[in-house]
């Protein structure tokens, strides 16, 4: 937390007329925005990420070809082939178009589990941290059990049992990310709950709901949000990984992990085309990681 008091004036000059500076008061968020704007690395990766997300959203406008249109003559054409800038896949479909469209599913499957887990795990952690006692015990011990699985294993176990499909993959990844988010939320909430300003709020007669809304949420949200953004990178890799194992979406849908899987058979014919979907996964995951790191240091959050 940014609990380092930056004293503007020495206490010794703390006189009744307060003659010191009337500099414009700056809220926490404007300080954060300022700090990010002076961080070129974070800005660069944020731009890459924006580019990836926008090109996925506007894939139907910018893609040069139909991502489903097969062409047996153009099968596995290498990168740089005329009309196929990034080559063609094992069914002769334009790689560039498929990569652009593929971003839609891959990003959706990667981001939505973290978003869902942020809501569900956040509520669990907030309740456990604020109420403490037996409720905390019950929630946190249950979460410990899920924590006893390595994340990849848990995702595969649930997905494997539920069967293939985008919804099932999202459900299993959400279950994977609820425990870590709930843990972080609980620990931050517990810390803040014991601070004097929460005591002061209780002393002024506010009920639990008001205290959570006004005093806890605003201070818990930042660290938990940052932590969640750092999970998106893992989530993107895992979501595409599930598709890679045949547990995510099904052909012929364009999705980076699934594309990697189907092109795997062709690495002896057209090796570098086969590697392209992975480049996208890598770039996206790396950008999320760098952005999360940049935000974290700008917000001065230590987890």
């Amino acid at each position, binding site marked *: 937390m940014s609990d380092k*008091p*930056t004293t*503007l*004036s020495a*206490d010794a000059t703390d006189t009744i007329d*307060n003659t010191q500076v009337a500099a414009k008061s700056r809220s926490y968020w404007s300080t954060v925005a300022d700090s990010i704007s002076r961080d070129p690395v974070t800005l660069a990766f944020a731009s890459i990420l924006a580019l990836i997300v926008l090109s996925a959203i506007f894939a139907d406008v910018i893609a040069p070809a139909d991502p489903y249109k097969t062409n047996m003559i153009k099968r596995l054409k290498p990168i740089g082939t005329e009309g196929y800038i990034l080559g063609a896949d094992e069914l002769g479909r334009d790689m560039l178009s498929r990569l652009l469209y593929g971003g839609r599913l891959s990003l959706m499957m990667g981001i939505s589990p973290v978003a869902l887990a942020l809501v569900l795990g956040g509520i669990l952690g907030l309740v456990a941290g604020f109420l403490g006692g037996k409720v905390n015990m019950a929630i946190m011990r249950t979460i410990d059990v899920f924590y006893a699985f390595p994340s990849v294993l848990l995702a595969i176990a649930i997905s494997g049992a539920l069967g293939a499909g985008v919804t099932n993959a999202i459900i299993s990844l959400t279950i994977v990310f609820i425990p870590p988010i709930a843990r972080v939320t609980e620990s931050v909430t517990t810390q803040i709950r014991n601070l*004097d300003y929460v005591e*002061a709020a209780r002393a002024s007669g*506010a009920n639990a709901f008001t205290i959570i809304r006004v005093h806890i949420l605003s201070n818990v949200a930042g660290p938990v949000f940052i932590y969640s953004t750092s999970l998106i990178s893992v989530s993107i890799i895992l979501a595409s990984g599930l598709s890679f194992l045949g547990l995510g979406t099904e052909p012929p849908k364009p999705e980076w992990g699934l594309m990697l899987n189907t092109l795997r058979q062709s690495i002896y014919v057209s090796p570098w085309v086969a590697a392209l979907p992975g480049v996208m996964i890598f770039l996206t995951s790396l950008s999320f990681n760098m952005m999360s790191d940049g935000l974290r240091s700008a917000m001065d959050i230590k987890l």
Partner: protein
Amino acid sequence: MTSPLLHVEGLKKYFPIKGGILNRTVAEVQAVDEVNFDVARGETLGIVGESGCGKSTTARLLMQLIAPDAGALVFDGMEVGRKDGISVHDMRKRMQMVFQDSYSSLNPRLPIEASIAFGPIVHGASQKDARARARDLLAKVGLNPNQFVRRYPHELSGGQRQRVNIARALALEPEVLILDEAVSALDKSVEAQVLNLLTDLKAEFNLTFVFISHDLNVVRYVSDRVLVMYLGKVVEIGDVDAIYDTPRHPYTRALLSAMPSMDPEKRTTEPPLTGDPPNPVNPPSGCRFRTRCPFAEAVCAEQEPQLRDAATSAAQSVACHMAGASSGHSISSEKGLPE
């Protein structure tokens, strides 16, 4: 004395210590044990004692921020938390608290105006009225509202933040203000300014103070009466002059003799307290002070001394065998401690 504004009876709080293989409660810290006292309307009661003696726990118990294990709190003749008494919610409107750490007692994400206005809004004031009140109070505590309303806690100095905390506590128009080491963390010069501010505010709003501090000089300066705590117990209570001039309890004497003084007349040759206070998990039997008391005898280990009026003055009570006649202590005399 007319009926007190605040009457505390048998207040007790033990904190459990978990441990062992099954993480059961293995022991208890006897933080506050059977504490009784009254606070009259308009007075300042100072509470002193070494750190860990239960001063802050007492403050939090008074505010009902932690639930007591036993004991009753009567506010203005109404018992707190009882159907036929006063609810905790209503009591908190009339009694407020200022904490020691000026930084952690303000929400870092809220401008100070919102922090001050929070209480009135909780109690049903409109946004506009609450804000107006916040500006009003800022001026009252010596901070120019035009400069400060939109500021955040990290942009203020320690003294300024504590002024904001005082304004926040006053926002509900309370009758009692509990000041838990409220000036202890401030520089000496700032401390004096804030103390003067408190004195002025007390007169202006007809406040009653419970002033908790480890600083004997400050307590003497602000208090009408003083309560001395040792290991969760009240050892002596009385008018400020009686306590400072004729302390009856050996602990009070030791505390006062350790107090730095500029007046060579007041310098005592009495031995200062040695060692740390015993563990409150397992306090000594009988009188809790006996392990550090130069006058301890067998009776001190056997019987717990009760708080009783000192013979010399009705405005002073002390919990020491030496103060009571026929207690079994060899120095037991009407006068209490030998001079």
